[in-house]
């Protein structure tokens, strides 16, 4: 479990605080999503948890271990990170790329052992890209490359995983596949997972718990179907939305027309069956 | 009345005769420079060792810092520090030169960029790089003309020629020792044909001599005064076929050449012992016979050139110069040319 308590961060003494007292909890075996618009501070928060930036004050602990004071190597054994943006410098093979996830476990003057290689290979199998083992990872599709990064994080054998906007560069099909796969892994391996995302639908569909962040503060945290309301989304994103349920899943759609509100309501009626406004009675959250 | 007019005319013609003439000189960089003579203010970045011989200190506006450290100059003009320096090693100061407002700057041809820079600033420059004895004489003559010191230069040249002639004369002399050593040489040569034997008897066998410069395998080649010196003292330069001033050769090549005598440039960073003790050179005849000599670190661009030649000649053929006392000869030249005595610690 990851506990984050009252994190403050600003880039310098004179600039305004990007994070103003963020607190949240991420349970083991659950996918906790940090949701918010661009500039709300979720990337900054992410970097603080990942250990790239140091918060001005506040605590971040993993199972009662204060991770702010750890070395990179110690932290990497506990937390594995899947980055958003990756510019491949050289055409490593998929196996070699995933093998790098073992860096925290390999001695300074050593090369990966057979055990390391096995961990890499099974991670590759787990995410389902074994057929690409020796292919150069610059020559595969965006979605496949994202899976390589996920496999790399898996090979790290860490109890917690962080995903930084894993679907922002992917097409629609891959978005779904990747998120599905991530969920599978988290549940199966029982890791603590935090994911940042800006698409509220994805957050709704795949998360166990959502932390909504606006302007450096947590607005609310909880199961998505409980806390994500049209009012909340309007408050955070400044957009009118309608939440409906299709096939048992919550779906958020924005109001397209911005003319008269009469038209808007009518549209809402047509689209909206099983309206979310009745949600208190019916729990339609993900189980 | 007429006398006055006549006197006036004589006066005019007289001054005209002694008036300015223009010297056109094509220097080492193939630039034709026109100089109004006599010059009044000259800056010597190079060729400064001629200054005590020129004896025209009032025309010297400035010198390179190296000049101040030159032992001959210090002895000839103890108050050399009163002559403005145009920079020490770190800083040839073109501005300083400009401040002195010289009519002429004498510098070397190895830095053409600095010359064009100076010309842009309005300084008239002459670039020199004497690559032979005759060229050296030519530069001396030019300087003599420019500074109205022709007689001094002629006198210096005469003294230098005396020593050169002595060397030429002795070298071409066949002594009994010579004949014996030619025979001994030809005995030592492993492959002998009849024609070989004939030619070694018929003419003096020239000995192979190398002149090494900054690095032990940087040998003087066909161009330049070093080659002239080797020929002058009766040697043959195995690198004389290479049309460069000097070049790097492989150690194997030096072993192939197998020189009998090796001379080392006076300013080189290594000594004769360094080569004699060096394992890689041990099969070379000059090293086996320990005939490796480092020259005094005097410039070859000055009146001491014949002394360098004499030094080399004595080392190369000691038997032909056994009666010549180097210090004596040096002293005579120093007195006649520089007007100072020779300090015998300067060269062995």
């Amino acid at each position, binding site marked *: 479990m990851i506990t984050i308590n009252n994190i403050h961060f600003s880039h310098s003494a004179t600039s305004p605080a990007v994070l103003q007292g963020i607190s949240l909890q991420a349970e083991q075996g659950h996918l906790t999503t940090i949701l918010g618009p661009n500039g709300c501070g979720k990337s900054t928060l992410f970097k603080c948890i990942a250990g790239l930036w140091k918060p001005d004050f506040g605590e971040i602990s993993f199972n009662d271990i204060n991770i702010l004071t750890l070395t990179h190597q110690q932290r990497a054994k506990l937390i594995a990170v899947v980055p958003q943006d990756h510019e491949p*410098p050289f*055409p490593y093979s998929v196996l070699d790329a995933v093998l790098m996830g073992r860096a925290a476990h390999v001695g*300074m003057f050593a*090369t990966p052992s057979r055990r390391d290689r096995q961990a890499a290979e099974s991670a590759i199998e787990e995410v389902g890209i074994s057929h690409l083992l020796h292919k150069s990872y610059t020559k595969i599709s965006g979605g496949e490359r994202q899976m390589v990064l996920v496999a790399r994080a898996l090979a790290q054998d860490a109890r917690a995983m962080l995903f930084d906007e894993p679907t922002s560069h992917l097409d629609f099909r891959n978005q779904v596949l990747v998120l599905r796969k991530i969920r599978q892994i988290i549940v199966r391996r029982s890791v603590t997972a935090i994911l940042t995302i800006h698409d509220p639908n994805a957050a709704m569909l795949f998360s166990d718990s959502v932390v909504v962040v606006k302007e450096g503060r947590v607005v609310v945290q909880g199961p998505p179907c409980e806390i994500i309301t049209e009012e909340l989304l309007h408050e955070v994103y400044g957009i009118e939305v309608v939440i409906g349920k299709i096939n048992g899943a919550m779906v958020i759609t924005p109001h397209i027309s911005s003319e008269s509100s009469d038209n808007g309501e009518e549209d809402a009626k047509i689209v909206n069956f099983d309206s979310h406004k009745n949600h208190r009675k019916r729990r339609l959250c993900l189980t | 009345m007429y006398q006055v007019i006549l006197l006036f005319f004589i006066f005019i013609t007289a001054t005209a005769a002694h008036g300015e003439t223009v010297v056109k000189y094509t220097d080492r960089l193939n630039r034709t420079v026109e100089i109004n003579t006599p010059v009044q203010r000259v800056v010597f970045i190079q060729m400064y060792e001629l200054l005590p011989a020129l004896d025209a200190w009032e025309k010297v506006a400035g010198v390179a810092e190296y000049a101040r450290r030159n032992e001959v100059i210090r002895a000839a003009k103890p108050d050399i520090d009163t002559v403005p320096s145009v920079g020490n090693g770190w800083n040839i100061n073109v501005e300083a030169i400009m401040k002195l407002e010289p009519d002429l700057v004498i510098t070397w041809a190895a830095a053409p960029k600095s010359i064009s820079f100076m010309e842009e600033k309005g300084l008239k420059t002459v670039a020199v790089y004497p690559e032979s004895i005759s060229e050296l004489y030519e530069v001396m003559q030019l300087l003599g003309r420019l500074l109205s010191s022709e007689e001094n230069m002629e006198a210096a040249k005469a003294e230098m020629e005396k020593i050169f002639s002595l060397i030429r004369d002795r070298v071409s002399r066949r002594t009994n020792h010579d004949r014996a050593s030619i025979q001994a040489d030809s005995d030592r040569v492993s492959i002998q044909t009849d024609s070989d034997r004939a030619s070694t008897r018929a003419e003096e066998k020239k000995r192979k001599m190398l002149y090494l410069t900054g690095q032990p395998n940087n040998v003087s080649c066909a161009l330049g005064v070093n080659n002239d010196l080797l020929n002058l003292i009766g040697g043959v330069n195995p690198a004389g*076929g*290479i049309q460069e001033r000097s070049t790097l050769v492989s150690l*194997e090549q030096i072993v192939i050449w197998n020189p009998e005598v090796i001379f080392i440039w006076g*300013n080189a*960073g290594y000594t004769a012992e360094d080569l004699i003790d060096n394992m890689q050179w041990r099969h070379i005849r000059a090293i086996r016979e320990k005939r490796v000599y480092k020259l005094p670190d005097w410039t070859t661009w000055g009146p001491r050139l014949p002394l360098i030649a004499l030094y080399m000649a004595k080392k190369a053929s000691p038997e032909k110069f056994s009666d010549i006392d180097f210090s004596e000869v040096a002293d005579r030249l120093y007195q006649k040319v520089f007007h100072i005595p020779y300090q015998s610690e300067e060269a062995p």
Partner: protein
Amino acid sequence: MTRKTVIHALVLTSPLFIASASLFIGAYGVSPLMVVRSLLYELLPYGSAMADLPEKSIILDIRVPRVLLAAIVGVALSGSGVTLQGVFRNPLVDPFILGLSAGAAFGCAISIGFFPALPVQLSAFLFSIGSVLLAYNIARSQGEVSRLPLILSGVIISAFFTALTSIVKFLVDPHKLQNIVFWLMGSFSLADWHTISVSGVGILIALCPVYLMRWRLNVLSMGEDEAKLLGINVMRDRLIFVVSSTIAVSLAVSVSGIIGWVGLMVPHLVRMITGPDHRTLVPLSMAAGAAFMIFADTVARSITTYEIPVGIITAISGAPFFIYLMKKGGKESWGR
């Protein structure tokens, strides 16, 4: 035995083949039989039959040290090249990028030009290390040294020392100037056993950390942030790589002058052949560097009576081959 393993084995052993061939080549004609006998003489005293012949001395005192030194310098240059290419995530980096060659040139120039009492090798070595130190310190900000500032400060330091060297060249005696120029152009012509025992051993020791830590170059090449996330102490590891390479290259430059192209080209070519995994790339680059350097030096010393600067040979032979491979490989050859 896969095709890949065969290629790797060939590259790894290439220096041995080329070195052996090179021993038979040289200005002084030594018969092949004599070459072999001379070599064997050292390994098993061949009775007292081998007198101190000039041929034996040519082989053992002149050619063998020269070939060995060329090999070691080749190892240093390409080993450092591949390391820095990994550290800076850029296949077009050469070992001199941090200002090293400019510092060495300056050290050489002032030693030959003004302080003959200071040995050229020492001066060049000290100034090469000094220039990298300077570059490192300029790039340091808040205790951290990142890639881009480091490269920029390398460029600045290079420019600075190059300017100073030009001034020295401008002022110095023309005879000395020629020595400076020759020295800088690079040569193995004076290689002897003493040089090898000092700098050769030094280079091999300095490259040990690079060799042992070579897998970590894979991770470092992922970028600073990612490498940290993967658990690498980026600052420490990068410092070790830069220091080791700098010492190795400074030693190489101090004995052989500045030889270009090898450190840039050889690792790049080897990467095109064997792939970017540094576990194989590093040792194979070193081997290929040794082989190439021996080859270039053999050409430099045997084509004409006088020595051609080996840097010219490396440029002439390397550049066209490099261009050909790049055209053939297309985009991939850039390592993307």
